[in-house]
Every structure is written in C-alpha cells, then in structure tokens.
C-alpha cells in the first residue's frame, strides 16, 4: 500500500497544475460566457497545452507520445479540470487513441492518421456513439436488432457508404478525425452488428450539423454529424467488421478509460469548489467575523472536503487498478459516484457563497458544469450497467 507518487507522476501533476493556474483558469469564465456554442474554443489554449504534451500524453512512446500511465492520466485530468473542467476534457478526449492504437490499428492506419495527429497541435479527435434516438440502447444494448445504432454502412467494393446521423458528438464539429460506431449488419443484435470506422473530417458526404448549446462545459463542444452517402475506405475499418462491441467490453477499452476520465475530471471540479469555499470562508466576513467561524459553513465545508477526498482516494485506486490491468466494476462505480459527489460539492459551494450574500460566477459555473455528469456518468442506465456487473 503506497499512496505516494513517483517522480514522473509528480512532474506531470505539477506541469498540469501550473498550466491550469496560468492558462486555463484565467480564461475559464471568459470562454464560458460566450453565447454562441460554436465559438467557445480558444485554439491557442489547445496549442499551448499540446506543446506541453497534454494532447498526446497517452500515445505510446514509439509513436512519439508520452505513454503516461493511468495514475498520471488521472492526476493530469484532475489538475486541468481544477482550472476548467471542459478544457480538461478537450485534452483527455484525445487520449482514446492510445487504446485503439495498441489494440486494433494497422500500420497503414497509424501512418495515415496517427502521424498527422502527432504533428498538428490543433488535431483533436472525436468518438461517435449517440444518435438522435436510442442513445441508451447503445449503452445497455437489448437483443432486439432494431434497437441501437442506426447509422448504416454498406459495402461497395473497397468503400463503405455511410448514411445516417450521429448527435451530441464531442468535438463533432471541430475534430479532424472520428472513431464512429456504424451498423454494418442491419439484422443482427447490436453486439454483433457494429463496426468501428476511422472517419476523417474531410470525408465526402459528411457534414457538421448544429452545435449543441450545453448549459455548462462550454469550451468542449458537441455537434451533430450528418452522413449522406459518405464514402469511407475499407482500409479505415478498425479491428473486425461487426466487431466493435465485442471489443468495447474487453480488457483496455476506451470505455474503461472513459469511466476513469469522468471521475478524475469530477475530482478536479470538486477541488476547485473546495478551494473557492475555503478561500471565501477564510477571507469574507459577516457581522464582523470571518465566515469560517459559522458552524453551518463549517459543516458544509467538512462535507465537501470529505466527499472530495473520498473521491480522490477512489479515483487513484481505480487508476492504479487500470495500470495493473486488474479490471473490476470499480471504474464504473467511481464514475457513477462522481456524479453524486460533483453535484453535491458544487451545489454546496454555491450555497456557501449564497449564504454569504455573494453571487459568484465561478461558483455558478461549477454547478452548471456538473450537470453533464447526470447524462454521461450517472443516469439510471449508466448505474444499472455497472450494477449488473457487480451482480453478475
């Protein structure tokens, strides 16, 4: 049992903290305030972070990345999220590469896509699962072949012709390359009917639809992707045809990373909320006394701290387990729990500000940022999926 960090982990953590404090946090509210959801990204921030290695942190070293381990990943995501949750996610969204590369990409695919990714500081990735109807069916697939993924691909010679839509796709409108789940067998149940494709932004027949106007997480954009006879070469199939879902429950799938990602990001938001409340309690006065002398404030800050530190402990444990390839239900459980914790902590922070008579845009922003966990990490479907694993 050793909770200490090694030198490399500590170094990445410190680098992320410095970047978050000097670059992310100062820009956080300003980007959040932009009304047009398609204009919230500041590519200078992406570039700066990319140059520091945050965009490519998880790519294996032989391909030019940094191959940081899961513990380091968790630390970096949390530190960046402490500066701005959506900005953190903008970087970590690119990390899904590492898993796909090591597992399923061919040398040709690496040459065609990984090299430009490594070379371009604004090359960000997307992964498309959700569609206009039936998002949850993809999360918890029923046996009915009609359920789930409707974006169709039909083989024509060396190409696949795609027709359909993806919606609410992270980076959908700004990514340069997408990993897409596409139905390649219309008659089989989902788990044997879906193929993973690499689809570049400039694919003919693909266009971006609307950009979603999220309540929080503004910097990180989600868009609609529309495919009208879009042509994707067979060479862009990742792994086996109809094999995308067989893989996604496997050893080191992106899904598993995704669970840790949401938990670690939530941790950063909790840290930011605790920091705000503690600073306020130590400096603001009411009736001539510091806020921290009030019992009701103490009780709230105690609760926030306990939840945050419990989450930190659990996140780091899951990251460690990932590094050991010791996969359990813990990744899903910590993701679910992160939903409850980030929302409670963010709301308590807003409440403490409110009870001091202070309206604080930062505190309100954390509450808004926290809402998306209900959808991504903690709705009933996400929880039952994990529970069924516990109960197996």
């Amino acid at each position, binding site marked *: 049992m050793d909770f200490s960090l090694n030198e490399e982990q500590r170094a990445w953590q410190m680098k992320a903290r410095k970047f978050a404090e000097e670059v992310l946090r100062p820009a956080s509210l300003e980007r959040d305030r932009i009304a047009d959801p398609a204009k919230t990204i500041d590519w200078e921030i992406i570039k700066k972070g990319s140059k520091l290695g945050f965009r490519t942190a998880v790519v294996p070293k032989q391909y030019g990345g940094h191959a940081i381990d899961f513990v380091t990943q968790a630390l970096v995501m949390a530190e960046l999220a402490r500066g701005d949750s959506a900005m953190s996610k903008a970087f970590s969204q690119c990390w899904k590469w590492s898993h796909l590369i090591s597992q399923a990409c061919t040398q040709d695919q690496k040459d065609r896509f990984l090299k430009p990714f490594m070379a371009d500081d604004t090359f960000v990735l997307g992964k498309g699962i959700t569609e206009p109807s039936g*998002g949850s069916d993809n999360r918890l697939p029923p046996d009915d072949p009609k359920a789930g993924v409707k974006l169709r691909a039909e083989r024509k010679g060396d190409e696949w012709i795609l027709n359909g839509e993806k919606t609410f796709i992270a980076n959908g409108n700004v990514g340069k390359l997408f990993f897409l789940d596409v139905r390649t067998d219309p008659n089989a149940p989902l788990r044997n009917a879906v193929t993973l494709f690499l689809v570049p932004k400039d694919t003919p027949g693909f266009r971006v639809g609307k950009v979603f106007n999220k309540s929080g997480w503004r910097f990180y954009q989600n868009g609609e992707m529309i495919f009208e006879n879009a042509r994707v070469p067979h060479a862009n199939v990742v792994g086996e045809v109809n094999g995308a879902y067989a893989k996604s429950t496997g050893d080191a799938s992106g899904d598993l990373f995704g669970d840790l990602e949401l938990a670690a990001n939530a941790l950063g938001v909790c840290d930011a909320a605790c920091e705000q409340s503690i600073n306020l309690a130590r400096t603001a006065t009411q009736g001539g006394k510091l806020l921290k002398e009030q019992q009701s404030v103490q009780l709230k800050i105690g609760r926030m701290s306990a939840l945050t530190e419990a989450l930190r402990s659990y996140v780091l444990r899951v990251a460690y387990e990932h590094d050991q390839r010791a996969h359990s239900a813990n990744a899903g459980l910590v993701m679910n729990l992160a939903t409850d914790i980030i929302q409670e902590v963010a709301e308590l922070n807003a409440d403490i500000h409110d009870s001091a008579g202070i309206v604080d845009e930062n505190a309100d922003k954390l509450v808004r940022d926290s809402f998306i966990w209900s959808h991504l990490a903690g709705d009933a479907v996400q929880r039952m999926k994990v529970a069924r694993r516990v109960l197996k």
Partner: protein
Amino acid sequence: MYSLHLSAEQLEFRDMIRDFVTQEVRPAAIKSERLEPLDQPLMTDFVDKASQMGLRTMALSEENGGSGADALTSSIVAEELAVGDPDIAAVLSETSALSHILFDKMMTPSQRERFLTAFTSDDRYHLAFANREPETDTRIGIGYHQQREERRIATKATRAPNGDWVINGSKSGVVNGPVAKLFIVSAEAEVDGKSSAHLFVVPAGAPSLTVRAQPQAGRAHHGTAGEVTFTDCHVPADNLLKGDITLLDAVRLYDLAINVGIGRAAYEAALEYSGIRVQGGKRIIEHQATATRLADIAISLDVTRNTVWRAAYASDHPDAVADRSLPDLPLAQMARVHVSTAMYRAAKDAAELFGAMGVMRDMPLQKYIHDAFICLRTGDGNADTKLRIAETLAGFRAA
C-alpha cells in the same frame, strides 16, 4: 370546517390561465431561439394580455376595481403562470400583491383618488417596493440567537420648504423596478419630530429617479429587478403613506407558488417524455428505474403544492392560528425552505430522464433547473431562513 374544496371561481381562474399558458405562453417560452441567449427579455405582450385577464389587479379589492383574490387564489394563479414562464408570473404577482396592500390597506381616500384610476386603467402600470439597500446585509448568520441592532435605512426623506418630501438614496434588487410606474419607497424621515422609517409613493419617470435593470445572471428573484436611485427626488407631502412597513415585510408567497409551477413544468415534461421515449424495446415509463423516479417527483410536487397552499391560507387567516387549527410557526418561511429544495431536486431528477437533451441550454429542462436554482437564493437563502425559523422554535422571537 376543514375543506379542501376550491371555489368555482378559483377553478375557473385556474382553467382559464391554464389554457392561456398551454396554448400561448409555454410554446413561446420554451422556443429554442428564446432560450439560447443568456438574457431573456420579459415577454411583455403576455404580461399585458394577462393584465387584460385581470391578473395584474387580482388581489386588489373588488371595491377598488380588482378581483379581491386571496393569497390562495393568487398562489393558484402564480403556479399556473409559472408553468409557462416564471418571469411573467412574478411581475404580475408582485403588482397584484402590492396593489392590495397599497390601495386597500395603506392609502387614504385622497391618495387613492390620485393614483387608483391610473393604476387600474393601464395594463402596463406596475408597482414596486423599493426597500433593500446596497451593501445591506440582512442575513442573521453569525448573529443567530443574539439581539440584533435595528437596521437603519440609509435613504433619507427630508422636508423641502414648500412641504414636499425630498428623497435621496439608493435601493437595489427592487423587484419590478424596471417596469414599475409607481414605487413604494422606504426612507428615514422625521415625522412629528421623530425620525424613523416611513413609506412614500414615488411615481416613475421623474429625472430625479433613475432605474437601472439588473442583469439576469446570478439573480435571486424571478421577474425583473433593478437598482433605483433617488437624487433630490421631490414628491408632494401627501405621498407619505400611513401604513405599517411590516405589511410589506413578509415572505412573498407567490414566489413559492412560482417555484411549484417550475417543478410542475419539469414534471409534466418528464411524464410526457417517459411515455414516448423507448429504450430496450419499452417506453421508459415501463422501466422500474423511470417509474421510481417519476413517483418521487410526483410525490414531491404534490406534497410541495399542498405546503404552499397551506402557507397561503395561513397568511390570510390569522384566526386559524389563533384558534389553534394551524400552528403558530413561521409557515411561509418553512414552506420556502421545503419548496425551493424539493423543486430544485425535482427539476434535476426530471432532466436526467432526458439524456443529453436534459443538459442543453436551449431545451426546456435546463431552463427549469435554472429557474429552480434562482428560487434557492430568493430572499436570504435557505441557510439563513433556517436560522430564522430556529429562533422562533427556540422562543427567541415570535413566528
């Protein structure tokens, strides 16, 4: 005798407004284009139309040209309006509530003669109470269960040689400020040789009175609010009101009903969607997880409305406290804590059923969450309200 029957008039009012809201207000209020911008301007057309339906002057006595609606009826109306749009509900409710206090209870006949007709005949004639002052901390906080100094009002009214009152000072967070044509203003004034807090009526429009609308971000009240500044603002001597300032001190009961309306809008949306959305081959309402969630929201909404109605009834019927049918407790404050907490939770729970749609700024569910969040902060917030309630429970002050 205990009875939960509503009067035919109350039911009619409810139906009428429900139709109006369902057919006109709600569709307009939840249009994406309206929800997208950060600031949503007040839909004044609907406010006007509601005024024509009598909702602006609802609480004003029939004698003075209103409907003489009691607090319960006003609550029913405010909830119905808020299902469509809380801002419309708040503007109308504030004017209506103040009209009853101002015209029915405070004004002398001669004052009424000067202001009443203008008020009743103009659908855009709104009222506002300018009381809270910038930098004034009204929270109990660290002063819980301790003697507190009486607050002094910084705004002053002094006598001009011609007998006019001259008002100087600033008020903040004045609900209805930007739309009011008449303000009730609290100011320190010397009357009969004694300096104390008094109320004045001050018409809007004079250059010596400026109103600056407050931004919607971070607001603590629905409707519209503003900073009001008085700079050597002259009003005739007769604009001094005789009424007791504590008449205006109470919790705004309509706020609680608006809060219920917000929760109800979220619940109705969730119930409808659950009957349409299919997952795993079944409508989600047929799944246990959704069922449990919907039951929780429905229970919360129903319990909460009942709590608000009781507080409204109690506010009109001190006799029911006196005869011990109702407890001698700060029911409105207690209701506020319950309502705001429960409806925020309800809106969030409802939104979760909508998946990604539940987190979009331009979709209704985030609007409901945001609207409910505003209610959490109304007044001095729940943390402080609980301390006030506890002071009563402890016998430290009266309910």
